[in-house]
């Protein structure tokens, strides 16, 4: 039991020590990955809807 308590204390210390992203950093990463998802998602969306509409291949 003691070992677990010690482990948890260790994890807690690491979490406290870790550097959390600043607001601007967080927004930047969110914007970049969000933009990537939107662009690639849009391309995939257009292709799939175009084909589903024509119903040619499916």
């Amino acid at each position: 039991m003691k070992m677990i308590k010690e482990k948890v204390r260790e994890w807690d210390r690491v979490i406290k020590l870790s550097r959390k992203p600043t607001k601007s950093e967080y927004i930047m990463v969110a914007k970049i990955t969000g933009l990537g998802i939107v662009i690639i998602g849009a391309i995939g969306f257009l292709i799939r809807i175009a084909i589903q509409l024509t119903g040619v291949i499916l």
Partner: protein
Amino acid sequence: MGFLHRFEHILTRLPEVERPRYALSFSDRIKWTGFILVIYFLLGEVALYGLDPRAVDLFENLRAVIAGKFGSVISLGIGPIVTASIILQILVGGKLIDLDLSNPRDKLIYSGTQKLLAIAFTIFEASVMVLMGALPGLNNDPHYQLLIIAQLTFGGILIIYMDEIVSRWGFGSGIGLFIVAGVCAEIAVGAFNPLPAVKGEAVPSGRIMAFLYFLFNNQTRFDLLVPILGTLLVFAAVVYAESVRVEIPLTYGRFRGAKGRYPIKFIYASNIPVIFASILMANIQLWASMLERVGYPLLGEFAGNRPVSGLAYYIQRPHPVYSPDFDPIVALVYSILLIGFSILFSKFWVETAGMDPKTVAKQLQSGGMVIPGFRGDIRIIEKILNRYIPSVTILGGAAVGGLAAFGDLTGALGGGTGVLLTVGILYHLYEQMAREQLFEVHPMLRRFMGELGI
């Protein structure tokens, strides 16, 4: 002189994508990546000719990881490529095949073997899927079965070479691009598809569109929006978790002044553990269904491709929270197993990928990474690292597993694991593009960076 060296002349003469002879500009790389992306989506729409409608996607909850599109010529996705490289890494890493990757001749043999193995796995996996009934030919007519295997093999080989094009002429790797493409399309179509799932139905299959449709008929169906919310929440959490760093204070006992900071990612083993965990759980499902098919339902019985009892029932991807047949016990057991396996594979990956304290200490000591003001003795660096790396390995693995489970429970579009991988891959892709863009502006910098081998 290993076993493979005898086949050197074959292995190094396999057809391969030409390497660019001049430095590619940023926009060239964008064009190539976009070009392959469109072709990948189009391939996903080419249905397999002669496929029986009874086809069942056994790897349904693995789809985010193996990409491809079920029922199309790329139904196998990147499964064969990934399987080939994992096996080769184990064989070379475990010294079962003696290839020294630092010498260029062996490197050529390694990539030749990898390609051949990937092609072999494509044919093997295609045959297994067809003959085992996952992708059956029309009323099991052998002609159709052979035709389907041929189409799958053709699609698989295309994927192998498209991956090579992206890796040499585009950004990042083809495998990363295909995973991201599949998940992004899933999110976009799953949310905004105005067309009904089945011809003739009125309700659009895109969840936001369906919600609006019901709103117009003054019915408020908020349950439709839960997956949208789930997707956004997992996205927000993963962006946060990916940016957390643990800065290890390498203060040196006797010299108070010598203070160095070595930042490591909180998600230390990145997404690899959750990929291995979901592959393991999917395989257990596969063996369970095969056992039942052979008549010994040891791991559980199935109704169609959904398990109804036994271990398989508890290890399947749970129905999302809002769905009528949501089973809290399954959700709990599934989450605990996914998190547990993620932690296990996180430890496994840190050991085998050379991220353990000893290896990292050696790297720091040998000058690859210069910590300002700190030239500590290797044993001391290792001791300090040992206080942090084991915790971050476990915490990172648990965080990744937890996020994936949360995504699956809320029915996040593209799946929890899918969103997780997509954010991770896109972020590393951005870092690579930023470095390229940086060189574009300062060619002089490129020469300087070139020498450091960054």
